[in-house]
C-alpha cells in the first residue's frame, strides 16, 4: 500500500473522530440543557464520582505532597533555599498536581466505569430500550454524568489540595525540622486566590472531559465484550491525553502575561 495513502487515511480517520466527538458533545449539551433533568441520576453520579473517588484521590494527594516536600528540600538545600519548601508544595499542589493527578485518577476510575457501563448498555440494547420508553439517552445517561464530572472534580481537588499540603506539612514538621507555625505561615505567605481558582477551573474542565470521553466511547462501542473492553481503554487513554493538553491551554490562559 502507498505509504502516503496510509498517512492520509490515518489523518482523515482522526478528523472524522474529532468531528464525531464534537457532534456528540454538542448533542449532549443541547439536549441536556433542554431538559427534562433527572435529579436522581445526577445525584447518583455525583456520589459515584465525588464520594467514591475520595480514597483514591486522597491517597494520591498525600503521597504527592510528601514527595514534593522531600524532593524540593533536597534540591533547594543545594543553594540554601530550604525555606521555600512550604511555598513550593502549596503552589504545586493547587496549581498543577492537585487537578492533574485527581483528573488522571478519576479518568482511570470513573471514565473507565462509565465507558464500560454505557458500552454494555449499548451492546445489550438497553440504550435502544430507553428510546422506546420515550427517554432520550443523552438526557438520561450522558447529561447527568457530564454535570456530575463538571461539579464534583473541583470539590475533589479542594480536598486533594488540603490533603496534599497536609502531606507536605507532615514531612516538613517530622523530617525536615520546620516549626509547625513557621511551615503554615510560609504556606499561606505567597498563596494567591488565583492559584487556587486556576486549579479549580482546570478541575472542572478535566471532570467534564473525563465524563465526556467515558460516555462517548461507551455510546459508540460496538460488537460485544471486546468492543466494550476497547471502549474502556480508549476512554481512559483519550481522557488522559485531553487532560494533559487542556492543562497546558488553561495554564496559558491564566498565567501568560
Amino acid at each position, binding site marked *: 500500500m502507498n505509504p502516503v495513502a496510509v498517512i492520509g487515511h490515518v489523518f482523515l480517520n482522526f478528523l472524522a473522530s474529532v468531528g464525531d466527538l464534537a457532534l456528540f458533545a454538542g448533542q449532549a449539551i443541547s439536549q441536556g440543557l433542554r431538559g427534562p433533568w433527572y435529579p436522581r441520576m445526577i445525584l447518583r453520579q455525583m456520589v459515584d464520582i465525588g464520594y467514591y473517588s475520595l480514597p483514591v484521590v486522597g491517597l494520591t494527594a498525600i503521597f504527592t505532597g510528601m514527595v514534593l516536600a522531600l524532593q524540593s528540600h533536597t534540591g533547594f538545600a543545594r543553594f540554601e533555599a530550604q525555606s521555600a519548601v512550604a511555598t513550593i508544595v502549596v503552589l504545586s499542589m493547587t496549581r498543577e498536581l492537585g487537578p492533574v493527578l485527581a483528573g488522571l485518577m478519576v479518568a482511570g476510575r470513573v471514565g473507565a466505569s462509565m465507558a464500560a457501563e454505557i458500552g454494555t448498555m449499548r451492546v445489550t440494547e438497553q440504550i*435502544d*430500550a430507553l*428510546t422506546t*420508553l420515550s*427517554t*432520550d439517552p443523552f438526557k438520561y445517561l450522558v447529561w447527568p454524568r457530564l454535570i456530575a464530572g463538571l461539579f464534583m472534580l473541583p470539590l475533589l481537588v479542594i480536598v486533594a489540595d488540603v490533603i496534599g499540603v497536609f502531606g507536605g506539612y507532615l514531612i516538613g514538621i517530622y523530617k525536615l525540622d520546620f516549626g509547625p507555625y513557621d511551615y503554615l505561615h510560609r504556606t499561606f505567605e505567597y498563596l494567591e486566590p488565583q492559584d487556587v481558582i486556576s486549579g479549580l477551573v482546570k478541575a472542572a474542565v478535566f471532570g467534564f472531559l473525563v465524563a465526556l470521553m467515558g460516555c462517548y466511547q461507551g455510546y459508540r462501542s460496538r460488537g460485544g465484550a471486546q468492543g466494550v473492553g476497547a471502549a474502556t481503554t480508549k476512554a481512559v487513554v483519550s481522557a488522559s491525553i485531553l487532560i494533559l493538553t487542556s492543562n497546558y491551554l488553561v495554564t496559558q490562559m491564566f498565567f501568560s502575561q
Partner: protein
Amino acid sequence: MTVSSPKRQLEHPPKIRVRGLYKAFGPKQVLDGLDLEVGRGESVVVIGGSGTGKSVLLKCILGILQPDRGSIEIDGQEVTRLPAREREQVMHKFGMLFQGSALFDSLPVWENVAFGLLQVKKLPRAEAKERAIEVLGRVGLPPAAADLAPAELSGGMQKRVGLARAIATQPEILFFDEPTTGLDPIMADVINELIAGAVRRLGATALSITHDLASARKIADRIAMLYLGKIIWQGPVGQIDRSGNPYVDQFIHGRADGPIKLDVRAA
C-alpha cells in the same frame, strides 16, 4: 371482505405503513425497497432467516436507525424526518420487547416495569410501584420479584419482565423482537400465550419478528416473509402451509436445500 372507499381509508390509515424502505450498511444492502402495512389492531409477524434485516426494519420504524430512503407512516403521520421532540411524542405509542430483554440492570425489576410510568407519565414512586406489581402479576410474576435485580432472574423471567415493561404504559403499538429466542419450548409457549393475551387485552397493533414458526403461528393474524431486504410473501397465518412460494416452503420446513442462500455477514 368489503372494499373500503378512499374516504374511509383517509379516516383510518393503516397503523403502520412502510413504503420503499432502503437501508444499507456499507456495501451491504439490508433493506431493499421494503413495503409493509399493519392495520389497526392487527398482529403481523415478519419471518425470515438470521441476518435478513428483520431487526433493522423494527429499528427503522422506531427511529433508532435512520433509513436511507423510503417512507414510514404511523397513523398516517410521516415519521422518518421528525425532530427529536415530536419523535418522542410518537414514541409514546410504542412498547417494545427486546430480544435479550434489555432490562436496565442498574434498576430493580419494578423500576424497570414502571420506567415509562415514572419518567414519562410522572407517577409518584409509590403509585408506580403498585402499578408495576399489578402488571408483573399479569405476566405471572409474584410481587416478591419486584425488588429483585434483573440479573437475579432466569432468561424466561427476564422476558416476562421485558414484556411487563413493554405493556405497562398501555401502548397502542407493540413490537416483539425474537420473543422466544433462547427459551426452552415450554417457556417459549408461555411467552407466546402472554404476548397474544397482552395484545388482545390492550387491543394493540403488534409487529413481531421471529424465525420461530411455532411462535409466529401463535401470535400472528398475518405472516410476512422477509428475504433479501424485501417482503417476498405475505398472507393470513392459515395460508402459510399453502403459500405456493418455494422460499416460504423452504423456510417453514427448515430445509438446507432450496432457493434461499445463506449469508455469512451479520446485518
